[in-house]
C-alpha cells in the first residue's frame, strides 16, 4: 500500500467510498504496481477480495505483498495461468476448468468467468457458523488486456465488465478495480490496436476513477519512471464534474513514491 497514493486519492483503509469502479490503465507503460497497491489496501480494509490474476502466477503477488491473506477466507484467488493449461492441453481424465473455456472457443464469451465471479461474491454470504464477517466484496482484475490477447472479442470483455460492475458496485455495494493496457500511440491513424483502444474508451466512460499511467513525454529517465493522471468523475447535482491531476512516480522494490511534476528527488 502506497501511503502517498492514499493521500492523493483521499482514502484510507478505514474510510473509502463504496460502490466505485476504479480503472487503472496504461499506455506503453506498466501500471501493474497499482494493482498491488489496491490489493493490499482492500485486504487491510478487511474487505472480501476476489482477485482474477490472469497475468501472473500466485507466487508473484504473494511475494510482493507479504501480508497476503493471512486471514482465512478473505481472498479468493483465481490463477488464470494454472487454469488455462487444463483447457489448452486437455487430458482424458482431467476435468476442464470451466471458467477458462473461452480459450477453447473464443466466441463463447466470458460467461463462465462471470459465473465464477458471481459465485465467489454472492456465494460468500451463505457462510458457515463462526466464520468471520468481512467487509464489502471487492473485485480486482489483472489484467483485462490479456483476455483480448487470448482471442476474446472486445464486446464480450465490455459486457463482462458491465455485468461485474452491476453485480459488485450496484448489487453488493462493493468496489471494483480493473487494469487495462494499451499499446499504440493515442492518435494513431492506422487501425493497429483498435481493440484495446475501444476497450479503454468504453471502460473510461463507465468508471468513477481513472488512473492512467504513461511514460514521460520527454523520454526515458531512470529516476522518474513515468507520469500518472488521476481523473475523478463525480456527480454534483445535475452536472457531472470531472477533475484531473497529474503526478510523476518512481517505483521502488516494495513501494512507489508520487510527486508533483518537477519535484522529483533527482531534480531537487
Amino acid at each position, binding site marked *: 500500500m502506497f501511503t502517498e497514493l492514499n493521500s492523493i486519492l483521499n482514502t484510507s483503509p478505514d474510510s473509502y467510498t463504496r460502490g466505485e469502479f476504479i480503472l487503472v490503465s496504461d499506455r*506503453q507503460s*506498466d501500471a*501493474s*504496481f497499482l494493482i*498491488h497497491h489496491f490489493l493490499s489496501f482492500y485486504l487491510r480494509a478487511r474487505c472480501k477480495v476476489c482477485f482474477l490474476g490472469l497475468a*501472473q*502466477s*500466485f*507466487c*508473484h503477488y*504473494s*511475494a*510482493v505483498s507479504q501480508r497476503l*491473506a*493471512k486471514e*482465512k*477466507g478473505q481472498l*479468493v*484467488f*483465481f*490463477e488464470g*495461468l*494454472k*487454469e*488455462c*493449461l*487444463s483447457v*489448452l*492441453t486437455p*487430458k482424458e481424465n*482431467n*476435468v*476442464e*476448468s*470451466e*471458467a477458462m473455456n473461452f*480459450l477453447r472457443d*473464443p466466441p463463447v464469451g466470458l460467461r*463462465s468467468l462471470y459465473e*465464477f465471479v458471481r*459465485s*465467489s461474491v454472492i456465494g460468500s454470504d451463505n457462510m458457515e457458523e463462526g466464520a468471520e464477517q468481512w467487509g464489502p466484496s471487492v473485485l480486482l482484475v489483472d489484467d483485462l*488486456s*490479456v483476455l*483480448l*490477447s*487470448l*482471442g476474446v472479442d472486445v464486446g464480450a470483455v465490455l459486457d463482462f465488465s458491465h455485468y461485474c460492475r452491476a453485480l459488485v458496485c450496484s448489487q453488493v455495494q462493493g468496489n471494483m478495480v480493473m487494469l487495462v*493496457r494499451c*499499446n*499504440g500511440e493515442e492518435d494513431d491513424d492506422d487501425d*493497429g*490496436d483498435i481493440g*484495446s483502444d475501444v476497450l479503454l474508451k468504453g471502460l473510461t466512460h463507465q468508471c468513477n476513477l481513472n488512473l492512467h499511467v504513461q511514460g514521460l513525454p520527454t523520454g526515458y529517465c*531512470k529516476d522518474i519512471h513515468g507520469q500518472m493522471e488521476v481523473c475523478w468523475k463525480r456527480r454534483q447535482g445535475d452536472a457531472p464534474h470531472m477533475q484531473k491531476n497529474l503526478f510523476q512516480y518512481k*517505483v*521502488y*522494490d*516494495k513501494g*512507489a513514491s508520487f510527486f508533483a511534476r518537477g519535484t522529483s528527488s533527482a531534480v531537487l
Partner: protein
Amino acid sequence: MAAPVNSVCKTSADRLQVNCTSFQKKTRSKLISIPGTRPSVQNGQLLVSTGVTSLDYLLGGGLAVGTVLLIEEDRFDSYSRMILKYFLAEGVVCRHELFVATAQDNPDEILQVGDETLSSSNVIKNYNSYPCALQSALASSSRFGHYYDVSKTMEVEIRQAAKCHRFYLPDHITPSSAAHRVESYSALLKSLQEVIHREGFDLSKSRNILRVGLHSLGSALWGDDLCCHDKPRHSHALTTFLYGLRALLRSSLSVAVVTLPSHLIQDRALMGNITRLCDNAIALESFKGSERETNPLYKDYHGLLYVRQVPHLNCLARQLPDHKDLAFKLKRKQFTIERLHLPPDLSETVSRVSRGEPVGVASACGSSASGTKNLDF
C-alpha cells in the same frame, strides 16, 4: 494440473503449501543448488546464464528460471540464431536438459554449438591429481557463464552427454486444412508439457533445469499467417501459445528462449501484445546488407540491440538498463554488447561526410551529389 471451478475458491493458505513452484522467493534455508544457476542479488530469484555474459548483465544478472526471453530476429536470422546456440551450449556445459523446437531446419543443426573455451581470466590455478579434463569439466559446470569459440563446434561426446528433446514440426503434423486454431502450436505445447511432466521438471522428481529453445515462432512455416497478412486470420494463436508457455514455465524449473521474425509482422500492436506475454524481450538489428555496414560510424559493431522489456519478478521495481543505445559485435570468442560509442569528429571532412546518409541530389547544373555538398557560399 486442472482444477474444477469450485476448488479455486480454496483459501490461499492451503495453496501456498501445495503450490511450491520455482517461482518463489527463496529463503536462505531452502536454496536449491543446481549447477549452472545462482540466486539473484536483487530479489533472490534463481538465475541461469544465457551463454552471453554481457546479455546476462543487461538482464539483471541472468535469465530467471520460469521466464521467457523473446529475441526479435535480425533480418537474416544470423545473430539471433547465434544467441540461441549460445543458450543451448550453456545448457550442455552446465548439464541442463535441452528442448529444441524448429519448423525450418532440423534441430540437430541448431545444436551444432560453439566449443567451450576457458578464457584467460578463468584459468584454474590449482590442479591436483585428478585428470585435467575432469577437473575443468567439474569447474566449468559450477561456473556461471562461459566463453564459446564459435569457429569450432563442440565435440560430439560432450554434446551427446546432454539430454536433448527435439520437436521438428514436419515430423509431428501433416499440413491439413485450416482449423480455427493453428495446430502446430497446440502440438508444441502438448509435447513440451509431456516432456516436463515425464522428466519431472515440475518439481516432482528432477532437480535440473530444462532449457527450451523455440526457433522462429510466428513464421509461416509454423502454419501461422502472422507474417503473411495484414489482418491475420489466427491472430491469437501465437499469443495463446505464449500464455500457455508462461503457465508451463512458471510451474516448472525451466527457462525458454523464443526467437521471432518480428520484421515480417506488420502490426505493431500485435508485437506489443506478444512482448507483454514474454518476460524479457530484446530486438536485434544487424548492419548486414544495409548501408550502415559501410558507414564509418558503425565500423566496430555488427548491429544494434534494443531492450524492449525487462520484467519485475516478485517485486515492484524493474532492473532497467542504464543506457538505451546498445550495439553488439560478434568476435570469434565473444559476443559483446556495449554502449554505442561514436568516434569523435576529428577533421572537417569527416563531419561533412558522416552527417546523415548520402542522398542523391539532382542539382540544376547536373553535377554529382558529392560535388554539390562542397558548394557552400
